[in-house]
């Protein structure tokens, strides 16, 4: 019990609050939990009224994500879903890393070597995110068609990178703004040139900020649907687009199949967030604690 107390902090908050917090968490988590449960249900269990909490789990839905008949009377065949998964991972991963690299350099510049009218530039950068994306979709679609970027990896990666940059710059800049310039001055006095100051002294201090920015950017990109729908081709399609195509069909929506896709789709984001969570907590509470 003492271990439990130590690890989960029940002792401090008291059992009442712990249970209360648990219930609230459960309400928040319930939709996700329901999706995960549905992924393991047979079609009959999925549609049963009242809904079933106890059932015999099946992996059929997961199998049919990758391998199933395209319609009644046809032979089961590969759906090529693994490609869409890899596409999602590749496109989101690359664009987040690119946005992080460019965003870090840009925000360091904005923070440490402000231009005349620095705030105006930052504001202009942010305005690109003030419009609903759907307003920009037609010109972007035409530009992609004309430039031949439509349906290519490069096209969608560039778009997502640009899409993530304003947010990354603003967020990372706030982290750079908070670290003391004295430390950088000290490094310069200790004989370090700018590059070493940046990599050895500044960057380690904003690790938490980079982690937080990476997670937020990843979630946004990972779930993006509209641009992916219009700008990716058959080879470069991402999971959200393919998921939408799975809806419908001859015998109504196959909820089990959809839930299985979503469940698998959640895993990478879960994993990244879990790995970065220590940094993330420090990142999102940054600056809220008096140093």
């Amino acid at each position: 019990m003492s271990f439990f107390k130590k690890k989960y902090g029940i002792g401090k908050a008291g059992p009442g609050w712990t249970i209360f917090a648990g219930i609230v968490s459960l309400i928040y988590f319930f939709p996700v939990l329901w999706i995960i449960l549905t992924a393991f249900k047979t079609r009959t269990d999925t549609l049963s009224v009242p809904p079933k909490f106890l059932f015999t789990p099946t992996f059929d839905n997961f199998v049919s994500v990758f391998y199933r008949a395209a319609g009644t009377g046809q032979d089961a065949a590969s759906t090529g879903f693994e490609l869409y998964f890899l596409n999602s991972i590749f496109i989101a991963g690359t664009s987040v890393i690119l946005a992080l690299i460019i965003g870090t350099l840009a925000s360091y510049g904005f923070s440490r070597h402000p231009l005349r009218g620095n705030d105006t530039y930052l504001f202009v950068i942010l305005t690109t995110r003030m419009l609903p994306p759907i307003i920009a979709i037609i010109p972007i679609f035409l530009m992609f068609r004309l430039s031949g970027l439509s349906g290519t990896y490069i096209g969608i990666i560039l778009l997502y990178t640009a899409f993530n940059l304003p947010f990354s710059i603003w967020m990372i800049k706030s982290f750079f703004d908070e670290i003391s310039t004295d430390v950088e001055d000290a490094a310069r006095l200790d004989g370090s040139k700018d590059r070493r100051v940046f990599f050895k002294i500044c960057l380690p201090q904003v690790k938490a900020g980079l982690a937080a920015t990476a997670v937020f950017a990843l979630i946004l990109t990972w779930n993006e649907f509209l641009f992916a729908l219009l700008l990716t081709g058959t080879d470069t399609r991402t999971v959200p687009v393919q998921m939408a195509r799975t809806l419908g069909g001859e015998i109504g929506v196959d909820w089990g199949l959809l839930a299985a896709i979503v469940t698998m789709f959640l895993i990478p984001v879960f994993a990244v967030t879990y790995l970065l969570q220590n940094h993330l907590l420090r990142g999102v509470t940054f600056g809220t604690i008096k140093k």
Partner: protein
Amino acid sequence: MASGIQIRQLTKHYGDLTAVSDVDLDIDDGEVLCLLGPSGCGKTTTLRMVAGLEDISAGEVRIDGEVMNNIATPDRNVAMAFQFYALYPSITVEKNLAYPLYAEHATPDQIEQRIAQVAERLDLTAVLKRYPSQLAEGEKQRVAVGRAIIRSPRCFLFDEPLSRLDIELRQEMRTKIKEVLADLSKPTVIVTHDQIEALTMADRIAVMRAGKIEQVATPHDIFAAPINTFVAGFIGTPGMNLIPAVVEGGSKKNELKLNIDGQHVVVDVNDAAMKLPAGSMVTLGVRPRFFETVSEVSDKTLSGVVDIIEPMGAETLFHVLDGKRELRVVMDRSVRFNEGEKIHLQFQPKMTHVFDEQGSLVR
């Protein structure tokens, strides 16, 4: 080749504001100079210009005879300890100490040896593996000093090195830094607003006000012969009594007749002060410890009433009202007065400073 630091007509403008104006200073090898002044007087800006962290608007900084104006900070080879320590938060104490040695291209063996030496010297051996955030305030301060002394720079700069420590640690570190600096025989500049720090650590003190140097002198001289009312009032605790007075005619040799708030007092002064014409407004500077009490009123005494009594241990501080003004008088603890008691004060000869209308010492 000239050694030490030479500062000539050093000036710093921020837009219309002049933060530092025409500062001239020479700091020799092995000398410790304290830049002392109230906050915002430009002392830290001066230090940062020597370090290369601020651009120089006009004037010149030379270190070892070499003009530093256009030399970037990393190439200046100066060591500085910051007020808020500026330790590298993401690496251990050991690596913090090793960091400056990178630029010197030291071998791993040398690095290890230097760290061990410095750590032992500053009692840091036990905390070498810790991160800065896990250190106590005093330890952080010692790491900051250690990082400055681990290599052999051309000079040392300290920005308010002790301001964040409590009184006890401050005294301890003062001695420690003095001891360490004595062995290094490099020019050292310490910025401080704490006069005790300056008086105890410095070979010479430069008092600054509003971007200008008011006086540069040894701790002894700056205390005994302040050049103007600002320096006089800034140095010494409790502060010097600065008493406005009017010169009256009929002074005798080495004596000056003064009207202090209606009381006529004869004060022993130097030749220059004697020549002040009758009717001149002067300020009389007397340190609280340089009063004598006498039982009888004479033409050399100033009378007042004891108002507040503050025992300070070995001594007692009396606040004495001479009508309009409050005088601070420090006496040995054996001297007892009661509140409301009328006392007669006599100024100790040679310890009375006369400042003219502009506040400059008459000498």
